[in-house]
């Protein structure tokens, strides 16, 4: 079978999502666009999601329009968009928002580029591949509490292995302040963020690479197409939907993550690593301002949603048509 035919077949079928196969029985009664079979398949997921996620989510969203605070001594009442008006003037929040965007974009992009390289390597028929595949997932396997503490040890200015190693290699004098320097702290935590998120991205991309038809590669290779050419013409088109999905999710996750940074710097020094989600977390859990924190959450959702809509416009359009 020729590569051209394979490609046409894939074009014709693989992309053609959204057309339900014809049914042997007559058209069925549909509720909200789903027939009985559809509902039957969907229900097991739908019930827990409605009870344990959608319910609490709606509640959380509603909080944004109240003055809810922690404690039983304060009566909660709806206050319309007062929280959002306050938020507009909250310069500290917007400052942390900018830091958060910078952090999320840097981590997501680096994470993607490095993971793609790793996934391509792990997809090769190399010796000891199983070991490399397992070890590459180490950041994923380590509990987050431990990850933060390990990296703090790595960055320790006196006894950290980073400074020790750099000193031995005569690259620095071994006294760099990684986490307390106003300029180095953010890059230092970004490295940890990339490190921590790589396994997930790699595994997803690796699974996606399995869909790349081997014959096409062989054909292109015999045709004399170089590595880069084969990547852009064969691998990338198949991988693209997976790439979009995982980068979109990574971006959301990175924007929302603060656990690691909290352990490493608690937002310091001088607020340089104060991520917006850390900000919202403090607002809710440390100061007990649930309503205000929920408003922050909603604003973040709105902004991320706009950014994602631009990024994902093609995938979403595909879903529609």
């Amino acid at each position, binding site marked *: 079978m020729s590569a051209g035919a394979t490609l046409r077949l894939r074009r014709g079928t693989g992309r053609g999502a959204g057309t339900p196969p014809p049914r042997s029985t007559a058209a069925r009664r549909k509720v909200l666009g789903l027939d009985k079979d559809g509902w039957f398949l969907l229900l097991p997921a739908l019930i827990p999601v409605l009870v344990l996620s959608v319910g609490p989510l709606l509640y959380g969203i509603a909080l944004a329009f*109240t003055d809810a*605070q*922690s*404690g039983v001594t304060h009566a*909660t009442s709806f206050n319309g968009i007062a929280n959002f008006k306050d938020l507009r003037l909250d310069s500290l929040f917007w400052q942390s928002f900018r830091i958060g965007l910078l952090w999320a974009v840097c981590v997501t992009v680096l994470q993607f580029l490095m993971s793609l390289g790793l996934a391509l390597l792990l997809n090769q028929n190399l010796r000891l591949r199983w070991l490399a595949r397992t070890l590459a997932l180490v950041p994923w396997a380590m509990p987050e509490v431990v990850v933060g503490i390990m990296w703090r040890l790595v960055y320790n200015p006196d006894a950290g292995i980073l400074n020790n190693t750099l000193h031995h290699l005569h690259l620095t004098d071994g*006294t760099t302040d990684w986490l*307390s320097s106003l300029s180095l702290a953010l890059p230092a935590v970004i490295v940890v963020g990339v490190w921590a998120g790589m396994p997930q991205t790699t595994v997803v991309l690796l699974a996606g690479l399995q869909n790349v038809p081997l014959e096409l590669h062989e054909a292109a290779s015999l045709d004399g197409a170089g590595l880069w050419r084969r990547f852009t013409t064969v691998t990338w088109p198949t991988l693209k939907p997976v790439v979009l999905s995982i980068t979109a999710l990574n971006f959301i996750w990175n924007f929302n993550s603060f656990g690691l940074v909290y352990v490493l710097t608690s937002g310091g020094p*001088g607020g340089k690593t104060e991520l917006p989600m850390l900000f919202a977390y403090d607002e809710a859990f440390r*100061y*007990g301002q649930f309503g205000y924190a929920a408003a922050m959450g909603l604003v973040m959702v709105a902004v991320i949603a706009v950014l994602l809509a631009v990024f994902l416009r093609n995938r979403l359009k595909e879903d529609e048509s």
Partner: protein
Amino acid sequence: MRRRTFLTGAAATAAVAGSGSLLSACGSSAGSGVPRLDFLSLAWQTESVKANKALVAQWNQRHPEVQVRYVQGSWDDVHDQLLTSFEGGAAPDIIHDEGIDLTDFGFGGYLADLTDLLPAGLKSRIPQATWDTARFNGGVYGVPFLQEPRVLIANRTLLVKAGVRLPDDTHPWTWQEFEDICRELSHHGGGSAERYGTAWPMSSPVSVTLNLSLTTGGRILYKDEGSGHTEVRFGTADSAFAEMVRRQVRTDRSAPSSALALGGGDVLPGFFAGRYAMLPLDFSYRQQIQQQAPKNFDWVTLPLPVGTHAPDGGRAQGVSPQTLSVAKSCKHQQAAVEFIDFMTQTPHLVQLAQGDWMPPTGTAALRDPSLTTTKLGWSTGMALASHLTASPALGSRGYPEWSDKIATPALQQYYSGAIGLDSLRGKLVRDGNRVFERYRE
């Protein structure tokens, strides 16, 4: 709409409307109708966990009518755990925490006011000044039972070599002397031969700065006793301590800027290696030092330097003690207080203090011979304990927000040299008071 009804309404939309008390462990029974109380303990050092568990076992043996279950918590996340379980209505009955953390829970109505529940014996066991650390909003919301001063832990070899007079409890150094000695002990030859007189591990710069500003007669946070409102001031006495740290880091270079972001445990390797001659640390770090120090390392516990022209001879340090509280939702508050009374009996307090390597609060326990020994520096810390006063942050609503949003970044910037004193004052006072204003109702 009251918050409670609002929350329940939301929850009921998705779930069976069960009565809230059904599942809350508070007042739940241990199988045979005997009430069972959950005791959330934050003990974490090996000896301390053992002491706590042993005391609970002892209580359970002696009191078959009220059983207590030991539940292990962690300082790392206790606030989040408590807030969630308070809001959800399933909190532990007896709660181990620290003074500053009680403020919002007390004001929020989640902790029982112990004023009328405390037995006379327990009240008189702990000095009045110490009770002040848990008194706010017109009530007492916890029993302070352990407290720790900051001390100087020094490399004796380096100090003796430099011919420095070692201070003792009756003749501590002044801050001025400390600065001079630190300068003398520092030398910067470049590379690994660098040595600093001291290092300030300031992973939480605000509490250190507040508590030690008392030694120079400052407070930074001033509470109006009548209204309970907090006001920030940053006069000469308030800023003296902060200015000294900055001088050491920026001008004298007798303290490294790299330590400013570290915790107490992170600077120990440098201390053992002779990179830092002295460390101002919490008293309980002696445990870690004793455990980790190389074999021939000669270390000594010294009293913290004192300020001049300050009340109490400049020895007063602010402290936020460890406390035992009772949840308001607890169905057997009297029994819970009896358990706390049991835990804080003088011999038990001594046990707990030894386990955690810090002074107890009880007057009689403070005199216990096993704690006033000169071994491992115990006597030095015990002598300081009587000068401890309530941290200016205690009982102050809005402190967490002021600390996170204003004071922490401002102090970090000031100590590292990014901003000057006037700018620091502006942030702490002007921006700070704006935060506190929001908490006045």
